[in-house]
C-alpha cells in the first residue's frame, strides 16, 4: 500500500488499507442486454484517507461505492473492506452510506431520524443517556440545534442533507461512502457543507470515499482524486492533492489549488476522449 504524500502534520493518513478493489468488474443484466459498468478497476484506499471519485456520467463511480457497501455484488474481481468481505463489513456496520437524496423518514422528527441507526443496531455498551448526548452533539455539529422536533418537510434541502450526515455519523462507522451527497444543493450551501464535512473528517478518524461531479469539490476535499473513464468505467488517473490543511477558503484561492483543478480537468477530458 502506497501512502500519498500530504504536506500537513495535522492529518495523518494511516498505513492500513480500508477499502481495496482488485480487478473488479461489474456487469448489469445478462446475455445480449448486459452492460459492462466497470472493468479492471484496481484501487486502494488507506485508512483515514479522503478519496474522491470523479468521471463522466455512467462511468461507474456509484457502482464502485455500492460494491464497497455490499448493496450490489461484483461480477468479477475482489472487493475488501476493513480486511473483510463487503458483506461482513456491512453486517459489522463498518460504514455509513450517504445518498444524493437525503432519504429521511418523513414520519420521524429530525431527532428520531438521527436516532434511527441506534434503534436498529441496538449498540451495546451505550447507555440511552449517552446516545442522547451523542445525537445532541451531532445535531449541533451540523448546525441544527433547535430543529430536533421538526419534521423533514419543514427543512430546506441543505438542512435535510445535514440531518442525513448526522445520521451517518451517529453510530461512528470507520468509513463513510458518499454518493454525490451535495449534488442537489445550491452552490453556496454546497461550499459550506464541503467545509463542514472536511472539518468533521479532520476531527474524526473516518475514511471517506466520495463520489462527485464537481472538479473543485474533489480537489478541495481530497487527498487523492481518482479520475475514471466513461462506460465501461476504468481508473484513468489517480491525482494526489498536496494542498495544506485545514482546507479553508484561502486554500481555495491558492495557485496550487488552481493548478490541481486544471490537472484534474485535463485528465477528465482525456478520459472523455478515450471513450469515443
Amino acid at each position, binding site marked *: 500500500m502506497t501512502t500519498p504524500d500530504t504536506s500537513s502534520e495535522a492529518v495523518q493518513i494511516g498505513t492500513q488499507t480500508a477499502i481495496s478493489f482488485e480487478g473488479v468488474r461489474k456487469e448489469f443484466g445478462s446475455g445480449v442486454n448486459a452492460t459492462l459498468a466497470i472493468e479492471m478497476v484496481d484501487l486502494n484506499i488507506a485508512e483515514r484517507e479522503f478519496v474522491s471519485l470523479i468521471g463522466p456520467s455512467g462511468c461507474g463511480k456509484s457502482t464502485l461505492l455500492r460494491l464497497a*457497501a455490499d448493496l450490489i455484488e461484483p461480477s468479477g474481481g475482489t472487493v475488501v473492506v476493513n480486511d473483510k468481505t463487503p458483506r461482513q463489513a456491512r453486517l459489522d456496520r463498518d460504514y455509513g452510506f450517504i*445518498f444524493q437524496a437525503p*432519504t429521511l423518514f*418523513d*414520519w420521524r422528527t429530525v431527532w428520531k431520524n438521527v436516532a*434511527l441507526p441506534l434503534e436498529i443496531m441496538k449498540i451495546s455498551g451505550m447507555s440511552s443517556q449517552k446516545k442522547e448526548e451523542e445525537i445532541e452533539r451531532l445535531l449541533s455539529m451540523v448546525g441544527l440545534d433547535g430543529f430536533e422536533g421538526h*419534521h423533514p*418537510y419543514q427543512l430546506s434541502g441543505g438542512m435535510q442533507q445535514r440531518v442525513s450526515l448526522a445520521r451517518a455519523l451517529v453510530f461512528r462507522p470507520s468509513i463513510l461512502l458518499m454518493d454525490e451527497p451535495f449534488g442537489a444543493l445550491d452552490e453556496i450551501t454546497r461550499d459550506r457543507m464541503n467545509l463542514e464535512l472536511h472539518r468533521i473528517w479532520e476531527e474524526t478518524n473516518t475514511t471517506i470515499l466520495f463520489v462527485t461531479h464537481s472538479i473543485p469539490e474533489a480537489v478541495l476535499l481530497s487527498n487523492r482524486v481518482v479520475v475514471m473513464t466513461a462506460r465501461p468505467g476504468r481508473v484513468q488517473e489517480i491525482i494526489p492533492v498536496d494542498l495544506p490543511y485545514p482546507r479553508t477558503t484561502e486554500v481555495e484561492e491558492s495557485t496550487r489549488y488552481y493548478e490541481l483543478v486544471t490537472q484534474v480537468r485535463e485528465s477528465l477530458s482525456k478520459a472523455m476522449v478515450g471513450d469515443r
Partner: protein
Amino acid sequence: MTTADPALESGPEQLRQWNRHAGVVIPPLLVFIAAIALWELVIEAFDIQRFLLPRPSEIASLFVEDFGRLIRQGRNTLGVAGRGLLLGGGIGIALAAITFRTRWMAEGVGIYAAVLKAVPVISLAPLTVVWFGIEAGSKIATVAIATAPILFTYTLVGLRSADANAQELMRSYAAGHVRTFWNLHVPYALPLFFSGMKIAVTIAMIVAIISEYFGGSFENLGGYIRNEANNVHTVEVWTAIVMACLLGISQYMIVAGIDRYVLRWHPSKRGG
C-alpha cells in the same frame, strides 16, 4: 400580555380557516335543502302516492319517532359489517404482509384477489348461508369475502411503495426483515391502507345490509327493510335507508379522521 395573546395572534388565520371550511360545507348544504324542497314540491304538484314516494317531512318525523329501534337495528348491522371487515381485512393485510417481498407469491394471490373483486360477491351469499347458517355467521363471511381483496390489494401496493434508497439504507444498517418491515414498509403502506379502508368500510356496510335482506333476523337494517318492503311500508323502508346512510357516512368520516391524524406528516395531508 395583551400583545402576546395567542387568540388574537391567530385570529385572522382562524377566520381564514373557518372561511375555507364554510366554502366546503355551505354549497353542498344548499344543494341538499334545494333537493328536499324540490322533492316536497314534486309530490305536491303531481300528487304522487305515498307508497311510491313519501314526503321527506314524513320520513323525518317517523325517523325521529323510531330512532331508538333504528339505532338498535343499525348497531346489529354495524356489528356484522365490523366483524366481517375485521376478519376480511385481517386476512387481506396478513396475506399482503406475507407475500409483498416475493413477486410470484404476491401475483399468485393477487390474481384471486382480482377475481374476487370482479365477482359480484353478494351472489355468494346463498353459499355462505349453506356453510355458516342463516344468522350472523354467513353475513360476516360474505362481508369478509368482499373486503379481503380490497385491503389485500391496497396494502400490498403500499408496502411495495417504500423508497428504493430507504430500503438500501436499511440494508446498509444490516437491519433484519422484521425491523425493516415496521420501520420502513409499514409507514409507506399507511396512506394506501387508509384509502383501502375508506372503500372497505363502505363496501362492508352495503354487503352487510344486502345479506341481511336475503334472510335471517329482522332485528337489523336489512331484515327490517325486507319486512317493511313486503308490507309496502315505504316510509319505514326510507327511515332504515336514512339510518344506513348516516352510519355509512359516519364510519367513513371516522376512518378519514384517523387517516388525517395518523398521516399528518404525509405530503398529501399537510399544507393546504
